[in-house]
């Protein structure tokens, strides 16, 4: 009788086990259901005169610093928001929220650039970068990682039009 009970317990256990599936799988993940990218707020404490304000965009660099901003955009080493072929960010607002869809990966800099003159190939300046809140300086960007199917939030930038950030390699980290 005892043997029978024990054997029944074992058979039940084996049966239960065989009835189970193989556990978790990547298909159970919620990843891939949503877009990936970054979001945040750009703050504008002050603005330049309208005659020196031609364009304004958020530019995300895969590598930083670039040789120059335009080349980086043209070669795909940087992504502009809004895209170059569409209207720039609104002028004379205190702040604006943004969300940019980006492929997963590591981006070395999220910046705000503006065009201060009529020459589209050269009159660009970098006036704000994303950095960690306790970073020692606000002119050196901190990298941002974008995970698949995930929007990396709180990528906030404070813009200072009076200070053009140098793209010299010595100034970069």
């Amino acid at each position, binding site marked *: 009788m005892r043997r029978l009970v*024990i054997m029944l317990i074992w058979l039940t256990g084996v049966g239960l*086990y065989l009835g189970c599936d*193989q556990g978790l*799988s990547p298909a159970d993940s919620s990843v891939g259901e949503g877009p990936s990218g970054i979001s945040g707020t750009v703050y504008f404490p002050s603005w330049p005169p309208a005659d020196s304000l031609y364009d304004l965009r958020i530019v995300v660099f895969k590598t930083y610093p670039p040789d120059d901003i335009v080349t980086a955009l043209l070669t795909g080493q940087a992504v502009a928001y809004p895209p170059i072929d569409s209207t720039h960010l609104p002028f004379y607002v205190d702040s604006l929220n943004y969300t940019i869809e980006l492929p997963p990966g*590591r981006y070395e800099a999220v910046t705000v650039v503006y065009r201060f003159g009529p020459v589209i190939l050269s009159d660009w300046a970098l006036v704000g970068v994303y950095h960690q809140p306790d970073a020692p300086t606000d002119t050196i960007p901190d990298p941002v*990682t974008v995970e*698949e199917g995930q929007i990396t939030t709180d990528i906030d930038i404070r813009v200072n039009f009076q200070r053009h950030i140098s793209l010299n390699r010595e100034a970069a980290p």
Partner: protein
Amino acid sequence: MIRQFLIGVLLFAGLLLAQSTGQIRGQVTDDRHQPLVGVSVYIPHTPYGSMTDAEGLFILKNIPPGTYTVVVELLGYRPDSVQVTVRAGQTVTIGPIRLQEQPLQTNPVVVTATRHEAHLSDVPVSAAVISSRLIRQRTNIFLNQALQYIPGITLNGGQLNIRGSTGYTRGLGSRVLLLVDGMPLLTGDTREINYDVIPTYLIDQVEVVKGAGSALYGSGAMGGVINVQTRPVHELPAIWLQQYGGFYARPKYREWQWSSDRQWIDGQLAGVRMGGERLAAALIVARDEDQGYRQNDWRQRWTVTTKITAKPAEHHEITLLANAMRQQRANFLFWKNLKYALQPPADQLGDAVQSRRGFAIARYRYFISPQKILALRGSWFANHFEDNINPQTGGNRSTANEGRLEAQFTWHTGRHLLITGLSGNYGTVSSNIFGDRSANEGSAFVQDEWRLTSRLTLTGGIRGDVFALDTIAPQGRISVRGAALFKLNTAHRLRVSGGTGFRAPSLAEIFTTTSASGLTVVPNPGLQPETNWGGEVGYRYHGSFWFTDVAVFYSRYNNLIEPTFRSNLQIRFENIQQARMAGGELLINATFWHHRLATQLGYTYVDARDVNSGAYLNFRPRHTLYAQLRGMLPLALATLDYRYISRYDRIDERLALFVRDVDKYNAAHVVDFSLSTRLPLWGGSLGLNFTVKNMLNYYYTDLVGSLAPLRQYVVTLMWEK
């Protein structure tokens, strides 16, 4: 002509050798006089050895004249030895040697439950034992791997949970007290169990006592006590060499195949024992490496252990156990997401921890008389770790040292067994996350075990603890316990027990200031100790072939310390919860076919709830089932283990802020298999062991955001003499 000459020389030499040596013949049977095949028969420290055939017969040839000890060993049986005198040209016949079977050790001697040696069947609380043989056979590199086979125990990311006592706090503030040879061994800063520093290869047995045990062991013994007993020096081999190697199965899904290389594990051990009856010492050096089944989850470790026993005079014994460990490991906290479950988030790649840890435990025992024993113990536990996880502060660092002294007097007088003692400890911490801190404790305890009648034994104990944690005013706690054991007859026992427990907050829980992976932890100097009370009623049957234990238990926990998310996404440890755990446990062990087949079955049900809200507690599985089948094959011992752990009823949903797919967790169904045998070799014995862990490669989480180890194959070779 030349060939004939050579044959003649060889025959002559063989004849001479046969006449100048002798032989030993014999037979080995079990205690039912059935022949045993595959038994190792050898003379230690010599090259002479053999194995029994199908009739249980053996022969050792070419033995030089002399007196020898012939050792007879077979897995699943108690080893035996016989003194034999061999004369030249003669054959000595011995036996039959009858080996006592012990495939299932159902009634071992334990000390943790009562602070003195008692058979498991005679302790008035729920307790369990894991033998060194099982630990070796399963290739358990770390203590936590061995503990997961005990009913009622689960591990949440390595954190011990006995009957629902513990959720998940990244190891901080263990509610289970770890002892090594009776001395507490929790880290001085975080008060967690550090499995890396336990020399698993030196374990004799691990004793687990379930339920509140602060009346015997003080702070931390709320959910239970784990006592690691190390092997006596004289039981260690004179020479001991071990090599294991294995690998993880490749993940089934393409998304989980993070590397094209196979991930290996390996380890080596070399040990030596010297000395004799008065003074004996053993030294063991071990190294192990695990490349990890997950990206950024590798580990390398070196360990040096020594154990020395001295008997300077009759009735006096001194033992020293010392261990030093150095380890480098990567830090895998949570997965990137379930789709890429074997990779960490990109910003955690490269996170690594270096640690140096060591302990020394000294014990002096004076057997004053058969009724009186005085034991003095001292221990020192040092921990240092540093990581690169918080680059803004140059990484986290902490160095903790703790010294402890303890005296215990055991007095058997009439029907009373009186145990009383004092203990004290002092610790310091120097850390960039916990600060520069100190902590000290003092305690006194007394326990009386009163054999009221031949059938009824009552136990009562009380302990007072005073502790001071750095700048916080000293506090005190009184813990009590009581138990009754009623022997219905030689096989049946009824027991009732109850007690209180407490845990002083760790320095880390009070003073931590750090941030990692987006989490920021802030200090809370107002943190109070946790307390609990609880009890159980149990019945135990202990027959020759059958063992059953049934228990129902209840515990009430107050001021539970839990990490609390504040509105600004900071974490602070706070006394927030009143909780209760209620449940039951059933164990059935049985042996069949003349003990050649042994089965174990253990089921535990826990209902763990917040008293105020009625909600189920985080990270507590409701059902655990453990089953084992062990069978003696002709030349080997095979073991099949199955573990089922039900899905958490509830987790901390706020982890979703930091961990993707945090809601993707499931129940565990784990099958492990091992096959062991032992052969005579070079005057010693060679142990061969093959293990497959998670044999069916079931993909389950051992915590949220953490896929448990994949199927793993390990082969172990161990030679000892």
